[in-house]
Structures are given as structure tokens and as C-alpha cells.
């Protein structure tokens, strides 16, 4: 019995001494290091249940408002909000697929359809501001103070250079609806699609001394660097409301939609504290708030 055991041990020693096993041992150690790094990484991440993925439109994200809201919310809650900045259209699409837990966008029509089709529940009106039409200082097309639809008709007739976002953003959706109201299909050399975010698109309009539709908040934050002026504002049709909607967990039963966390943030942002932060945002730097609250 004992001799068999010793024989076996000798055999193992013999195998160990052969170079082949040493080689595989080295590779094995490398793999261990790799695995260790993996687990190290995974442990660094916050536990999944505490993450709330927020699909938010770029105009909100770029304004910087979210940073304030999120840091205050995270102080008092166990959840962490991860904002994914995409266009309104993309945010809604991600909400439909269940890739995020809640969406914060500005396109009433699409928001209502989102709820109607059962993708979202618990919608709240959070804040609003207005769109404005900007143009070069001389206003060659002469649209100052005209009604929006009228202004669009003239711009198209004159073929005045107009810069569009050309993406799936809330601003672009609004712009296209205005063209529709004016019964115009904008096309031609004068109509340029930037495909970029608002601020960069404003810069393009500035360079080209063109006309452009933008939300007032973004205009306020970049006004210093632009030579463009507000030519049309105040029209009812330029109302720009932002809404927040939780993604319906029942639509995606097999995915871990964090409904609780989403609802918590919705409550916060539509409650006294959240609304307070929004009301104050931008007052100091720009003399007026970038977003207005309902309450």
C-alpha cells in the first residue's frame, strides 16, 4: 500500500521535472493573474441593483443641470444615477428596448406614444423652456418678430441658409414639425444638416451667419461666443416641455429594470428639492434660469 503511494509520488515528481508541465504551470499562473484582474474589476463596480440607467437628452446633459441634481440625490439615496446622454429619439428607443431604467426627454408627442404603447409609466412634467429662432445680426430675410410658421415660410422662399440638427434630437423633432406646419419640405443648398449637438451646430450657424432653431437654455450658455441674435421668440408653438418617464418593468420581465430606483429619482426631481435646484440653475451665471419649473 505504502510502496504504491511512494511510486505514485515519484511519478508525479518525474512529471513535474519534465519541462512540459513547468510550461503549462507558467501559462496557468498568467491566467490566474488575468482572472484576478477580472474579479478585481468586477468587485469595483457598484452592485447592479443600485444602478439606475437614465437615458437623457443632450440638451439637458450639456447644460450641466444633471450633475447638480444627481449629486444631491445620491447623497440622500442608496441608488446611483448613470446618465447616458443621447438624442431624444435614441433615448426613447432605448426605453422601448429596456436598455435604460428611465428617460428624460423633450418631445411631448413621442412621450405620449411611449406611455400609450405601454413602454413607460409614471410620467412627470419636470420643467420647460422655449425654443427661439436665431439669425444673423442684419436679419437679411426679415423674419424678426414674425409668427414662427410665417418665418419658416419666408426662410424657405428666400433660401436663406438654415442649419438643422439633422439628428433624432428633441430640437430636431420640433424643427421638423414646424416645417410641416409651414407646409414646406426643406431641401436644397441652403438647408444644412449638421448631425452634431446643439452647441456645435450653433457654432456652425454662427460661422455661416445662418438661421437656426435652438432651445433658449443652450443659447444662453453660448451667447457670449455667438454673433447670432434672437429673432423670433415667445410664440406658443415654441413651448419646449421636458418630461421624465420610468420604463415599464413589466414590458421587460427578463431584464433587471430598476423601477424602484427610477421612481425614487422621479419623485426627487418633481418634488420640492429637485424643483428648487432646477429653478436656481443658471440664475447666477446668466441672469435668468435655463429651465422653468411648473411648481
Amino acid at each position, binding site marked *: 500500500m505504502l510502496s504504491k503511494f511512494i511510486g505514485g509520488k515519484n511519478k508525479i515528481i518525474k512529471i513535474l521535472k519534465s519541462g512540459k508541465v513547468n510550461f503549462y504551470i507558467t501559462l496557468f499562473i*498568467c491566467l490566474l493573474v488575468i482572472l484576478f484582474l477580472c474579479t478585481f474589476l468586477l468587485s469595483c463596480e457598484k452592485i447592479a441593483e443600485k444602478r439606475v440607467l437614465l437615458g437623457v437628452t443632450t440638451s439637458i446633459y450639456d447644460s450641466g443641470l444633471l450633475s447638480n441634481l444627481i449629486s444631491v440625490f445620491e447623497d440622500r439615496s442608496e441608488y446611483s444615477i448613470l446618465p447616458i446622454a443621447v438624442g431624444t429619439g435614441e433615448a426613447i428607443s432605448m426605453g422601448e428596448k429596456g436598455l435604460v431604467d428611465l428617460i428624460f426627454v423633450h418631445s411631448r408627442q413621442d412621450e405620449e406614444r411611449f406611455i400609450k404603447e405601454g413602454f413607460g409609466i409614471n410620467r412627470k412634467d419636470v420643467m420647460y423652456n422655449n425654443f427661439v429662432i436665431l439669425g444673423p445680426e442684419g436679419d437679411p430675410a426679415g423674419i424678426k418678430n414674425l409668427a414662427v410658421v410665417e418665418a419658416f415660410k419666408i426662410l424657405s422662399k428666400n433660401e436663406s441658409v438654415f442649419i438643422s440638427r439633422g439628428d433624432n434630437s428633441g430640437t430636431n423633432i420640433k424643427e421638423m414639425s414646424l416645417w410641416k406646419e409651414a407646409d414646406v419640405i426643406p431641401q436644397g443648398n441652403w438647408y444644412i444638416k449638421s448631425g452634431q449637438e446643439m452647441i456645435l451646430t450653433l457654432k456652425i450657424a454662427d460661422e455661416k451667419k445662418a438661421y437656426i432653431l435652438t432651445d433658449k437654455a443652450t443659447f444662453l450658455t453660448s451667447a457670449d461666443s455667438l454673433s447670432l441674435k434672437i429673432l423670433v421668440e415667445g410664440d406658443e408653438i415654441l413651448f419646449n416641455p421636458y418630461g421624465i418617464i420610468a420604463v415599464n418593468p413589466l414590458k421587460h420581465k427578463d*431584464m433587471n429594470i430598476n423601477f424602484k430606483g427610477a421612481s425614487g429619482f422621479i419623485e426627487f426631481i418633481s418634488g420640492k428639492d429637485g424643483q428648487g435646484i432646477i429653478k436656481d440653475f443658471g440664475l447666477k451665471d446668466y441672469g435668468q434660469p435655463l429651465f422653468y419649473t411648473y411648481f
Partner: protein
Amino acid sequence: MEIIWEGLKEAAVKIFTGNQEIYTILAVTIKVSGIAILFSAFLGIPLGVLIGTNKFPGKRLVIALINTGMSVPPVAVGLFLALIFWRSGPLGFLEIMYTPTAMIISQIIIAAPIIIGITISSVQQVGSNLIIQAKSLGTNKTQLLWLLIKETKLGILVALSAGFGRAISEVGAVLIVGANIEDKTRVLTTATLQMVRVGKFDSAIALVAILLFLSFGINIVISIIQYKERFVWMTRL
């Protein structure tokens, strides 16, 4: 021109006054790319040496694949990983989308082929005569692997520096899988992009300056090491 100068000033000020934001961005950048390179190194260097010095069926195909992998567009990697790690994807349950882990994985996919590919061509310079000599001295596979790695260490350093350079300078992959979330997945490249988007061009230039400095710094260190190797006379181990 003035704007560049403003940007450089801002960069210097922010770094030396210990600006929290910049440090966090820098830390995430180095953590993500650093771990990606470490991983790729432990995986890629032995693999590169083995591929380069052994004959096996399909060797040419493997090398062609690796060479293709060296220039894969980062945005394609980002998209591919998003499809996998989104909740709707096969690995969605891991919930690693929008985390540094996903970013590290994307950078491993981007950097590893570079490290492996350059290691392969470096080790092929070693020459079969040396390998024959080493074998006749009685090396086993591990000893041979280790000797080859030491002999090609300059080439390997170049591989690591190239891999790291590509990792810290790519934006497509980390943007898609990380979403540029403040304090969590924001790295130098995506932060720069964000600054450009919001029109803060001096901040953008500041970040770019830091990025270039980091890249440049690594290359200087490599060059110094290469230079020193030329004058190796006394090398008692």
C-alpha cells in the same frame, strides 16, 4: 492661437492645484487603459512569442487575423460590445454596460492585437539559430519562453507603448460602452469630446494637452531605455 495658450495655462493650473475633476478623469483613464494593457501584456506577450517561434497549421491565418485586429476601428468594437452587454444582449445579465469593466474589455480587444502583433515580429528577428542553440543547451519550454522574452524586451516595450498609446487615445469604444459618465466612466478622450460639445474649448485643449503629455511621456521613457541598451557593456546579472 490665443485659445491654445489659454488652454495650456488652464491645464497647468488644474494639475498643479490638484483640481478634483481632472484628477478623477486622469485616474479613470489610467485605471482603464492601464489594466487593459496589463491584461493584454500577460496574455499577449507569451502568446506572441509562442506564435512567432513555432510552426503550426494555420499560422499564417492567425497572423493575418492579428494584423487585421491591430487596425480594427474602436467604434466598431464599442458597437459590438454594446450589442453583447446591453440588457437586451446575451450577456446583459452581467450588468457591466456603462462600467469601467466594459471599457477595459473594449480596450483589451483594441490593444491586445497590437501587443501580440509587434511581439511576433520582434521575436521573429531573433533568428532560428539562437533558438536551436538554446534548445541544444537544454532549455525546456518555460526557460526558452523566458529567454526569448528577455532577448526581445526592447521590441516588447515598443509593443506595450504602442498598445497603451492606442488605448488611451481612442474615443469610439469607451464612449459607447462607458457613456462618459462623470466621475465614473469619463476618460481624457471622452471628456475632451464633452468639452468640445459644450463649447468649452480651452478646457478641451487643456485635456488634450494632458493626453499628449501622457502619450509623449511614455514614448520618451521607451526611447531612453532603448538608448541605454545600445551601450550595454557591463551586464553582470
